[in-house]
């Protein structure tokens, strides 16, 4: 009678098969949901076990333990002195007219080509300013003698931890850079050398290996210190004794220290993540309620374990040769980026540092390359003082004890060297390159060319 239903006649057997056929996916789904539940439960257990293990290793897991860890890693003896210095310099430039004329501490440019015989129109203003803040500069010189790194009061709040003191510390380095520049211009070698030594002290005082920002600020201090040494080479003030004093501060770092530093930085980042996971302010940080909901549901145990696994991978990157660090960082970053998506719940958290891994690893390499260029330029000057002429090439520096490993970049490329008139030039790799092992520029950088002069560490040695 009904053509449509004839094809699916309702017999008890068919009906029974159909019934079980319909029921089967529901049973399967229940099984999957149960297994998912078990998976979450297991993940929760694993997460707890991991946390217990981290805690047992005396490593930070939240704001309170982060504060303790930071306290253990630093010294409080200099807290008061550094607090005074930071406070004094925080607004030291504010009462000044024309800060746009002031190099380093204001927005003014330093002299492009350091030259003691060249006019420096802003010298009068710089000199007056430095005379006024002289006692504070003296306080810096005294503070760097105190035990380092220095502890300062920080309110740890996960990823929202205010690191104002760390940012303020950059003002200390800038003032010292100005002090050294002025001393060099005035040919006051002892004052300049003291400033250079204090620059290193500032980098060590603020060597907070507690998070990416902390280490990047330290690195900025260290790179400024090395750059100041290289600028000083143009003034031709240094004798062999001064060169040896500076050179003694530039010994190569133990690779183990670099690994440890990386590990500590990401242990700190992990602690910030763990405290942020339960932090209302972080969910509130999202502008809308649905964003906040997404942050909250990102607290699923599997997500938390996934995040810990990613941090574990981050911690392991530093294992291996230094030269391969950017490669490994790049590889991991690419992998994490490809794996992540708008709906990968861990992405919301890893985005806090994901784009920075490669850049961070490159900053480590850059510091090391800067150190080698700086050390080589000191050796070139030392050679000239001894031999009375510039070395023909960098291989000639064997004679004054500079190892060959210090005359190449981390990527194994020989540093650039050229004698031009009364000056010798040493330069390093192209820092604007995104290559893992950037080439050394074929021609020396032109300090007068604003577009390229910062693309490579260079020293003009007189």
């Amino acid at each position, binding site marked *: *009678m*009904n053509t*449509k*239903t004839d094809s*699916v006649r*309702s017999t008890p057997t*068919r*009906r*029974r098969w*159909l*019934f079980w056929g*319909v*029921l089967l*996916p*529901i049973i*399967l*789904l229940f099984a999957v*949901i149960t297994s*998912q539940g078990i998976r*979450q439960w297991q993940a929760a257990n694993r997460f707890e076990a991991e946390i217990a293990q981290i805690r047992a290793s005396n490593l930070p897991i939240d704001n309170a333990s982060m*504060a303790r860890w930071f306290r253990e890693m630093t010294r*409080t003896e200099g*807290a*008061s002195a550094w*607090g005074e210095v930071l*406070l*004094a310099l*925080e*607004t030291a430039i*504010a*009462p000044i*007219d*024309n800060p746009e*004329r002031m190099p380093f501490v204001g927005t003014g440019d330093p002299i492009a080509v350091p030259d003691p015989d060249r006019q420096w129109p*802003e010298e*009068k*203003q710089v000199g*007056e*300013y430095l*005379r*006024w803040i*002289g006692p*504070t500069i003296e306080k810096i010189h005294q503070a760097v003698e105190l035990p380092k790194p220095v502890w*300062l*009061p920080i309110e740890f709040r996960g990823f929202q931890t205010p690191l*104002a003191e760390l940012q303020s510390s950059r003002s200390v380095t800038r003032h010292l850079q100005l002090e050294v520049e002025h001393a060099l211009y005035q040919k006051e070698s002892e004052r300049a050398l003291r400033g250079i030594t204090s620059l290193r002290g500032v980098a060590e005082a603020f060597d907070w290996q507690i998070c990416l920002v902390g280490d990047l600020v330290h690195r900025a201090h260290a790179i400024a210190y090395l750059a100041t040494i290289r600028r000083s080479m143009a003034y031709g003030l240094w004798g062999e004794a001064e060169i040896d004093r500076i050179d003694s501060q530039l010994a190569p770092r133990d690779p183990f220290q670099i690994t440890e530093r990386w590990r500590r930085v990401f242990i700190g980042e992990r602690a910030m993540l763990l405290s942020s996971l339960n932090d*209302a*302010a972080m969910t509130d940080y999202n502008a*809308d*309620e649905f964003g906040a909901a997404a942050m*909250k*549901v990102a607290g*699923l145990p*599997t*997500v938390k374990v996934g995040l810990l696994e990613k941090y574990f991978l981050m911690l392991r990157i530093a294992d291996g040769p230094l030269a391969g660090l950017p490669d490994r960082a790049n590889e991991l970053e690419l992998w994490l980026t490809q794996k992540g998506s*708008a*709906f*990968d*719940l*861990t992405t919301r958290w890893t985005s806090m540092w994901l784009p920075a891994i490669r850049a961070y690893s490159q900053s480590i390499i850059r510091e090391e390359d800067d150190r080698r260029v700086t050390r080589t330029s000191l050796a070139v000057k030392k050679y000239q003082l001894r031999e009375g002429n510039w070395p023909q090439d960098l291989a000639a520096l064997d004679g004054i004890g500079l190892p060959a490993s210090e005359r190449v970049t981390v990527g194994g490329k020989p540093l650039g060297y050229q004698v031009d008139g009364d000056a010798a030039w040493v330069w390093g790799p192209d820092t604007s390159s995104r290559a893992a092992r950037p080439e050394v520029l074929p021609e020396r950088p032109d300090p007068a060319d604003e577009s390229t002069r910062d693309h490579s560490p260079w020293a003009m040695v007189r």
Partner: protein
Amino acid sequence: MNDRSAIGRLCWKEFRQLLPLGLLFPLLAVIFFAVAMVSGNTPLVTLVAGGISFLAATMPGLYATGVGALSVSYEKEQRTLGWLASLPIKPIRIVRVKLLMAFSGLILFWALATALLAIARLVSRQQTSVIFEEIGSFAWPVHTLFLMLAGFALAWSTRSGMAAILWVLPVATIPVILSNLILSLFRWRFDFEIAPAAPVLISCQILSIAVAWWLAERNGSRAIGAQSTGTHAGLRSMREEGLSVPWAWQAEGAVPRSEPSALVWQFIAQNRMVLLGLGLMLATAALIWPLDLWGRGVLSIMITVLGVSWLGTSVFQGDSIAQRIRFLADRGIAPGWVWSTRQLTPASIVSLFLLGLLIALTVSGTAADLFPLLTLLVLIIYGTSQWVAQLLPSPIISSICAPLVAAMAAAYFALSYVWFAPPWWLMAVTILIPLVATRALTRRWMDRRLGWDYLFANVGFAALMILPIAPQVVRSINEPRMPAEVKRELSAIAPPVVLGSTSTRLKELVIAGANGGTAYEVETVQSNDPPRMMADAWADKLAQVQEQLNSTQVPISVSSGAVLETLRGIAELCLIADSNPALTAAERDEGAKTYPVAVRLLSQAARRLRMSHRLIEQDMADLIEIWLINELRRAGARERLGSEIDSNVRALLGDREGRQKARERAVAASWADYQMATKKDRWTNPDQIGGYQLFDIIEPGGAWGARSRGEFAVGELWQWLRGGKQGTNPQRLERIARAWGLPPSTYGLGDTGPIWRADDLNRYVHPGFRSYKPRPGAQWFAAWEDEAEAMGRSFEGGNQESAGVPKE
């Protein structure tokens, strides 16, 4: 009945038929508005206004999709096509009347949508008019006309309304596909600045409209014409078109059995096409989820919500058509069997979808962690939709409403999870309530007892949906609160005149160069001017501050922090000038002259801060006074400052009573201000108390929890203030730190506490005067106050007015 009156009655019938759909969306918009306006909450109003904008833009689209099904399929469900055919009106005219009424409705919807968009803009205070952007310029309105006509054409050709709506979805893409095809085949060159896609798309839409119109009229005329040949002929015609009779087994003479397998088989036979269509839709969704994840996932979410929601409605929909369920009810089939066997097949398809999705996500290696959340989302949408389908008698209206209601339910669960932080098991129980509700009410639904008691029973179940709020209510009851006597004291002290206006009456000090100086006209030094002596520049800056302080007697705000920092910087540079051998004698003299001026201005600033009715300014005043103590501690301070300034600073520091009163007044006023803000804004918490941001103490519990916590935090401070130095103990400090979401060290606890709290000025590290540096009450009753008092005792009577004390 003449032709004209027949047409008129026909129009009236159509109007009544479309009325529920026409009322539904404006009603939802009105509910949205009412919630927003009653709450008086600006962020919520903006959120709701955004929702209304979305609703307004989609409303005509949903109407256009459903109107065909409602107008035509409803006739089929009610078996009134025969009556229509019997009217002395040509079938084509009947069809045109239906189309005309639907088109009028569409125009009305667009007028309403435009009005809603305009109101939403107005309410959310967004002055820019982007109405045309929101409705997709002209393409979207034109597309809704196509949707409407296509919906009619399909509704005439299909048996059920659901099937017609399902078919509209793929058909809706035809103009878009066509225009993309044309664009990919021809490289159009336009001389005017319009994207070539727009004219091509609109041309394709117009072409599609013409075809859809023709089909709608042709199919309609045929369908009505077929009815006129008689019921049997009509039935035969339906069968020939592949449309089965309502109860297949009845037509066969088979008797339904109460055994579950028979009921499942009957359900599948009854909804075969719908289930197949929805199954395909969800299979597509499962396949595109991993691909779409790389984008925003909008398409995946949309198809999933629609597919799952319509599966939910299919649970009770088939049996609601023409009251088929009576067949089972009359034969005494147990409601439990009916409910479970109706659920089984859609639940099975949903299960298959979720399993497929899990496989797709796992294989593609993306977002497997998303699966539990998607499962929850699907469960919420399915549960809500099947509830809507049982509640609303019209299957077509329920099909149109269910996705919207289900999306709102999903939003509700997400928000309640964020705002009220219920335990997961309570969320799980609440999510199951719609299923429990339909199960409990199946008997009444089968018996078609759908009166008020049925409605009230549903409302009762809906009321249970507030369960996620329950833990917060319990927490709120058990949470420590501000004691009643504290409230009374605070209310008695809070000066009514300042309520709600404290922040507007504060003055911000500005200096060019310190904080931009935009608010204060100052003569800026051009960069090509020769640099002045530093001391000259300082004298100008100090004069600017003095002028601002003299110009008004209102309190200054904490946002003057940058200026205060500049004053401090100048004072400290001038102070160290005294022992700075690098400076000339003239420069040292300038420093010696400038230093006391800077100190005097800071002390004046401290007094002005004390006058503020906000807590944060009191704490900033504490920081300045601590700094002043350090200055007075220095050897030769009196000589350096001069006896007048020295005396006035000592007077300021020694005024413990004045400090206490100012703090009490500020706490009371801050609390009162907070109370006013909470009354004004019922749904969310004010973001500050006494100038302090509150996001640290909102968790958990949304606005209500935060409100009581805010009160508690202020109450603790108040009790501490009343307790004074004797009432200062580590337990209280720890409690206050917790209440304000700050580390205990802020209040001097722990080994680093002495660096934060000025109990020992030799160990204390002054944080400076930046506006973000003060912490609530962090320096109250610390040892610096004793030293300040001791310094005050040596005060030998200075001229307070010269130190900036305003005249009474």
